[in-house]
C-alpha cells in the first residue's frame, strides 16, 4: 500500500512540474524552460528543505505541532543577519564574500538553536501548551527585535536588508540556487544515512537510553542539520511560517509509518507538490496577485489551529 502511495506522490509531482514548465508558455521554448526551470528547482529545493527540517525537528522534540519556523528559527536567522549588518555597516557587509557571511550566520544560528532547544524543549516537566506558546512568542520577539534594529540602522543599510526579509518564491538568485542545492543535497545525504537512528530518537528521552543509545549526540547532530536547512531556505526565499506544518501533517496522514526511511522521502515529495502545485494553481490557473506564501500561511495556520484544538481536548 505504501509503495502505491509513493507512486502516486511521484506521479503527482511529475505532473505538476511538467504543467508548471509548459502551461501557458509563449515565445521561445529554450528561454521559457530555462527561466521556469530555475523557478521549479528553487520551489522543489525549498519545499524539500523546509519539510525535512520540520520532520527532523518533530522527531527530536517528540511533538507534531512545533516546527522550526513556529519556534522562530527563521526569524532568528534574519535577526542574526540584521545584527551582522548592524555591526559591520552596509559597506563592511558588502565587502565580505557571501559564502563567508552565510557560514558565519549558519554557525551562529546553530549555536542559538542548540541553546534554545536545551533551554526549552528538554524540560520534560513543562507542559506542551506552554512550550508551543513560548515558541510562538519567541518568534514574535525575534521578528520585532529584527524590525527594531532595522529601524535603528541607516536607511541605506536598511535597503540591503529589506530584500532579504520577505518570503518570495518568484525571484531567486541563480548563484545562490546552485550553492543551496549542493548544501541541501549534502544534508539530505547525511539525514538519509542516519534514518534508522532517527527512528530510535523518535522514541523519546528515556526509551533510547534503556536500549543502549544516548540520544543527546544524535539530537545535537540533528539540530545542526536543521539549522543548515532553515538557513538555506530562509536565505533563498525568506521566512515561511506554516509550510512545514502543513506538509508534515499531510505526510503523517498519507504515510502511516514510523520509519524515517518512508516519512522523509514522502515529506520531500509532498513539500514539492505543495509549493509547485500551489504556485501553478495560483499563478497560472487562477491568475492571483497574491504570493503563494500568504495562502500557505493561511492554510497552515488553519491546520495548526485544528491540531492544537484536538491536542488540547484530549
Amino acid at each position, binding site marked *: 500500500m505504501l509503495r502505491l502511495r509513493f507512486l502516486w506522490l511521484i506521479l503527482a509531482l511529475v505532473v505538476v512540474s511538467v504543467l508548471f514548465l509548459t502551461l501557458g508558455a509563449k515565445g521561445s521554448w529554450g528561454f521559457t524552460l530555462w527561466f521556469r526551470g530555475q523557478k521549479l528547482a528553487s520551489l522543489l529545493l525549498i519545499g524539500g528543505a523546509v519539510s525535512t527540517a520540520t520532520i527532523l525537528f518533530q522527531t527530536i522534540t517528540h511533538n507534531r505541532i512545533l516546527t522550526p519556523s513556529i519556534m522562530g528559527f527563521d526569524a532568528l536567522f534574519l535577526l542574526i543577519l540584521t545584527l551582522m549588518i548592524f555591526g559591520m555597516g552596509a559597506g563592511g557587509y558588502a565587502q565580505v564574500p557571501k559564502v563567508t557571511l552565510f557560514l558565519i550566520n549558519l554557525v551562529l544560528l546553530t549555536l542559538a538553536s542548540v541553546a534554545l532547544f536545551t533551554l526549552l524543549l528538554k524540560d520534560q516537566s513543562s*507542559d506542551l*501548551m*506552554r512550550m*508551543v*506558546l*513560548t515558541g*510562538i*512568542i*519567541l518568534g*514574535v*520577539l525575534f*521578528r*520585532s*527585535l529584527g*524590525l*527594531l534594529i532595522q*529601524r*535603528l540602522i541607516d*536607511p541605506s543599510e536598511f535597503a540591503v536588508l529589506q530584500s532579504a526579509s520577505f518570503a518570495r518564491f518568484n525571484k531567486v538568485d541563480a548563484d545562490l540556487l546552485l550553492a543551496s542545492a549542493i548544501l541541501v543535497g549534502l544534508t539530505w545525504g547525511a539525514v538519509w544515512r542516519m534514518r534508522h537512528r532517527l527512528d530510535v530518537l523518535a522514541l523519546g528521552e528515556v526509551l533510547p537510553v534503556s536500549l543502549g543509545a544516548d540520544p543527546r549526540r544524535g539530537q545535537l547532530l540533528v539540530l545542526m542539520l536543521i539549522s543548515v536547512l532553515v538557513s538555506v531556505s530562509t536565505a533563498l526565499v525568506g521566512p515561511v*511560517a506554516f509550510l512545514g506544518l502543513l506538509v508534515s501533517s499531510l505526510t503523517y496522514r498519507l504515510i502511516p509509518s514510523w520509519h524515517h526511511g518512508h516519512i522523509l522521502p514522502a515529506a520531500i515529495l509532498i513539500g514539492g507538490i505543495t509549493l509547485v502545485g500551489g504556485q501553478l494553481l495560483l499563478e497560472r490557473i487562477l491568475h*492571483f*496577485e*497574491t*504570493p503563494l506564501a*500568504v*495562502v500557505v*500561511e*493561511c492554510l497552515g*495556520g*488553519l491546520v*495548526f*489551529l485544528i491540531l*492544537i*484544538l484536538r491536542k*488540547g*481536548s484530549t
Partner: protein
Amino acid sequence: MPRLWLLICLCLILLLSVLSIFVGVIDLSPAALLRDPEALQLLAVSRLPRTAAAVLTGCSMAVSGQIMQILVRNKFVEPISAGTGQAAALGILLSVLLFPAAGLAVKMSLAAVTALLGTLGFLALVQRLPPTEPLLVPLVGLVYGGILGAVMVFIAYQADLIQYIDVWMLGEFSGVMRGRYELLWLAGVAAFVSYLIADQFAILGLGRDMSLSLGLNHRQVMALGLLCVSVVSALTVVTVGMLPFIGLVIPNLVSRRLGDNLRVTLPITALLGGVFVLGCDILARVVRYPYEVPVGTIFGVLGTLAFLWLIYARPRNA
C-alpha cells in the same frame, strides 16, 4: 496601597506628558512657548494631540484588555493579537474597497462591526476549549489572529492595496495631528463607561453560573463588554494602528500586585497603560534621533519579554 499606586501613576503621566510635549525633531523649549507664536502652533497641532493620543490609546487598550480577559475568563489574552485587531483592520480594508469615497465615520463603524464579529468568533472557539489548559486560549488567539491577518493580506494583494495595510499593522504615533486623532476620545469614553460598571464586570469574571445566581444580567453585561472591546480596538486600529500586548501585560501586572477588585484596580490599569504607551512613544522618538522608530516594534520587544515572564513566573496562588 492602591491609592499610592494611583498617585504614582498620575504623577508619572503628568511628568511624561510634559516631557512628551518638549521632545521631538523640532526644538521646543518652555521659554519659546511664551514669545513664539510658531511654537504655540506646533504645540497645538502636533505635540498636544500626540501626547493625548498616546495616553488615550494606552488607557483604553489596557481597559479593553482587562475586559477581554474577563469575557474569555483567561488572563493571557488581549484583543489586538487575538483576532479583534485583525478583524478591525479587515473591516477598514473592506470599507476602503467597498466605499472608497466614504469618510472616517463609515470606516470606523465597519471596523467596529467586523471587530465585534471577530471577537465573537474567538469567543465561540474558546468555548470549545477544555478549562484545564489555560495556555491553550492565548495560543488559539494568536493563531486565530494570524489567520485573520493572512486573509487580510490576501485581500489586500488581490485589490492592490498592500501598501495601505502596513499603516494598520504596525502602530505608531508619528502621523497623529490635530484633526486626525479625535476619535480616540471616544475610546477614552468607552473606557470610562466600563469603569462605571466595573463591579458588574468583576462579577462577570466569576463565571456564568455564579454571576447569574448573584443576580447579574449576564447577557447584557457580556454584550456591553464585547461592545467596549470592539469599539476601542476599532478606534485605535483606525487612528494609530495595532499596538499588541499592552492589553495583556498591564492588567496582569496590576492584578498580580493589587488583586482583582476592578472598581479599585481599573483606574490604575488605565493610567498605567497610558504611562506605558506614552513612555514607549517618547522612547521611540529619541532612540534613533532625528528619525523615529514605530512604537509598535518597541511594544513587540518589551511586550513579548513581559509575556514570557508572565507565563513562566506564575503567581504563587495560581
